[in-house]
């Protein structure tokens, strides 16, 4: 382009002013990064090698706008639209870029006859995606919740709801290593799900319980299944801890998005966690049913892998002491490992104690092996609530049993106590 109209030149200033606001918001959210997008690490693992190009192109466009290069910006956004024809936010930005050539713009998304919320939610997506990109990637750091992955758990998923971002960690010799992150949609009404229908996303430690691929969803829900896109991975909300607190509701899934859209606004689900269909497929390649943890937190606290070592050791000791005490047939000592607030949901500590005493009296020996132990801190707790899951190989003079077990450990004073125990 040799020339541009005067109107376009004037509009350019206004438009960049508007988007500047969004950019300022984003950089305030990530002061450490000084407003510069961070290069993604050279991810190399099967499903995760392709970076989410759509978002990268969008962000590139927004930075071109910020730098007053509107012609380049339009070219960039056209690329995004060509690759992702249903990327609604990209269309909105394109509309602004075109309209800015005819008149000054005062905001992002300048069309009439549409309910205000419809545009506002796209603006929210723009802000969320900008903030995501400006967020530093957690190289060499882990969320403090990931105390220990067990050897069979290849990956862990950790969702930061305040950043609308799902992080994927790979289990490298027991140490979680960051490999990718994805833009996600959460509940319309935010987080901390409490009741059925409150349209909120739960916070806690969960596991993927099953896989519902496209054809299965279609069989189950017919046309309505379009909402879930390429597939879904239900998680075990409400978990044992949720139930104990009286939380209810059901059907919290990780799922895709309808095929007529590339992504959904950041807060628009009924509590589920929605990802673009391609991102869901990438994650799907790593999900192990019943094994893969999904930890949902409102603000991840990042630590170095070493920082968790002390806590991990403490919990491992407590678990080992519990195992040894059980083997010792000293039932009183064994029961001291349990909190006075212990409950299985059916038995409280008194019932549990009675039962254990009766059972143990008839035994001459017990052997307990504990294996494949995973340990996760519970989001929202102050390093004082942990979910421990393991394979238990139990043998005794009159009974032998192998099972998967889950315990919730709570820190009371200086010692860890079991507050829940049951099959996993």
């Amino acid at each position: 382009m040799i020339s541009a109209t005067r109107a376009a030149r004037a509009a350019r200033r206004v438009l960049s002013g508007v988007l500047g606001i969004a950019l300022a918001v984003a950089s305030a959210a990530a002061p450490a990064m000084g407003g510069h997008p961070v290069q993604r690490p050279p991810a190399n693992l099967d499903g995760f090698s392709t970076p989410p190009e759509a978002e990268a192109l969008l962000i590139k466009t927004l930075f071109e706008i910020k730098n007053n290069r509107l012609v380049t910006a339009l070219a960039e956004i056209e690329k995004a639209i060509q690759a992702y024809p249903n990327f609604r936010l990209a269309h909105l930005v394109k509309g602004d870029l075109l309209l800015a050539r005819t008149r000054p713009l005062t905001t992002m998304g300048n069309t009439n006859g549409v309910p205000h919320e419809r545009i506002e939610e796209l603006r929210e997506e723009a802000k969320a995606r900008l903030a995501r990109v400006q967020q530093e990637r957690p190289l060499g750091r882990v969320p403090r919740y990931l105390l220990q992955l067990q050897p069979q758990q290849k990956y862990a998923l950790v969702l930061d709801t305040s950043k609308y971002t799902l992080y994927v960690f790979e289990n490298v010799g027991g140490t979680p290593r960051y490999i990718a992150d994805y833009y996600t949609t959460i509940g319309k009404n935010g987080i901390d799900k409490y009741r059925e229908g409150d349209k909120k996303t739960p916070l806690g430690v969960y596991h993927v319980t099953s896989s519902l691929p496209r054809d299965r969803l279609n069989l189950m829900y017919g046309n309505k299944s379009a909402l879930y896109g390429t597939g879904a991975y239900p998680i075990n909300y409400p978990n044992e801890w949720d139930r104990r607190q009286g939380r209810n509701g059901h059907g919290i899934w990780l799922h895709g998005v309808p095929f007529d859209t590339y992504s959904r606004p950041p807060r628009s689900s009924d509590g589920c966690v929605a990802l673009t269909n391609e991102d869901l497929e990438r994650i799907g390649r790593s999900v192990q049913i019943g094994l893969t943890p999904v930890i949902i937190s409102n603000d991840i606290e990042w630590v170095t892998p070493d920082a968790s070592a002390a806590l991990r050791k403490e919990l491992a000791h407590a678990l080992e002491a519990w195992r040894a005490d059980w083997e010792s047939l000293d039932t009183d000592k064994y029961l001291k490992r349990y909190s006075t607030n212990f409950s299985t949901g059916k038995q409280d500590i008194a019932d549990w104690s009675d039962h254990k005493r009766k059972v143990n009296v008839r035994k001459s020996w017990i052997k307990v092996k504990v294996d494949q132990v995973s340990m996760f801190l519970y989001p929202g707790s102050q390093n004082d609530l942990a979910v421990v899951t393991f394979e238990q190989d139990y043998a005794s003079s009159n009974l032998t049993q192998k099972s998967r077990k889950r315990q919730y450990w709570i820190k009371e004073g200086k010692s860890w106590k079991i507050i829940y125990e049951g099959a996993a």
Partner: protein
Amino acid sequence: MTLIRGGALAVTMALLVALSGPARAQADELQEANRLFKQGQLDRALDRVDAHLANRPKDARGRFMRGLILTEQNKSAEAIKVFTALTEDFPELPEPYNNLAVLYASQGQYDKARTALEMAIRTHPSYATAHENLGDIYAKMASQAYDKALQLDRGNAAAQTKLNLIRDLFSGGPQAGRPGATAKAKPPVKVASTTPAAPVAKAAAPAAAAPAAVPAPTPVAKAPAATPPAAPTAAAPAAKTPAPKPQPAAAAPNREDAVLQAVTGWAKAWSGNDVAGYLAHYAPDFETPKGMSRADWEAQRRSRIAKPRQIEVEIQAPKVKFDDRNRATVTFRQRYRSDTFKADARKTLVMVKSGEKWLIRQEGVGG
């Protein structure tokens, strides 16, 4: 979107002079073609242009004229070929790019229209019409982008645009492509002034019958040709019909005026070979003659009215009778003149109010 006519001809005229000194006779032939074109005699105009081009196949002005005629004849594909070839042979001329853009835009091909306009501006950075057209294109594309962003399906926007443009072309006014853009009406006015006998004046062409009906191009340019009940439009026919306004005014001036404006607008569109404008005066539930389908009836009217010939329709001694607030019967004497046919008849129109407009529901002879 503004289709370039006169302005382009002025530029290309200079080009013609520069390229060829002696060809006076042929230039005259082209002027004759231009005259016929402005009278709406498109087939005859095309014959003249083709004759001209037979001798001078490369002539920019003749080819441009040919492109305009083809556009008017709704032969978009051929017109696009003509203008495209012109941009290739004369890349320094902005007008062919502009008209190419108008044609592309009428087909909803906004990206191509945009590219063409950007080329026009590249050759002539201060070319106001191309800038304005480009603004329109950007706005259209922005609107499409927003619709996609918000997953809206607001009908077929491209088809809508196309229809508007066809109507604009028939009405012939260069201003008509910019409905509602009254504030920006400068370039069309400019174009109209360089060509005093702008096609808009067609309705008043038989000047003998209507002295000074459309005196200056400026008010014409302001009148939205497609929406007849606007004040200035109605004023012109009022001058030639024997005072239809004051006559019945005593009874119910406003109501009656509105109905009469609709009738005169209808006659004016008819006189102007403005099919779309003419058809726009009929109610959706218009009772077609002999139970014809609406589509067949429209096709018939289109072929008769759009046919390049002189039509003059005059309304005389109209009388309005209100059946109720939203329905009126208008009787008048209709004087119809074309190059081939003359007729005087009593006519009755049953008009119904639709929003702010009065539309024809029944049309009959007699009354």
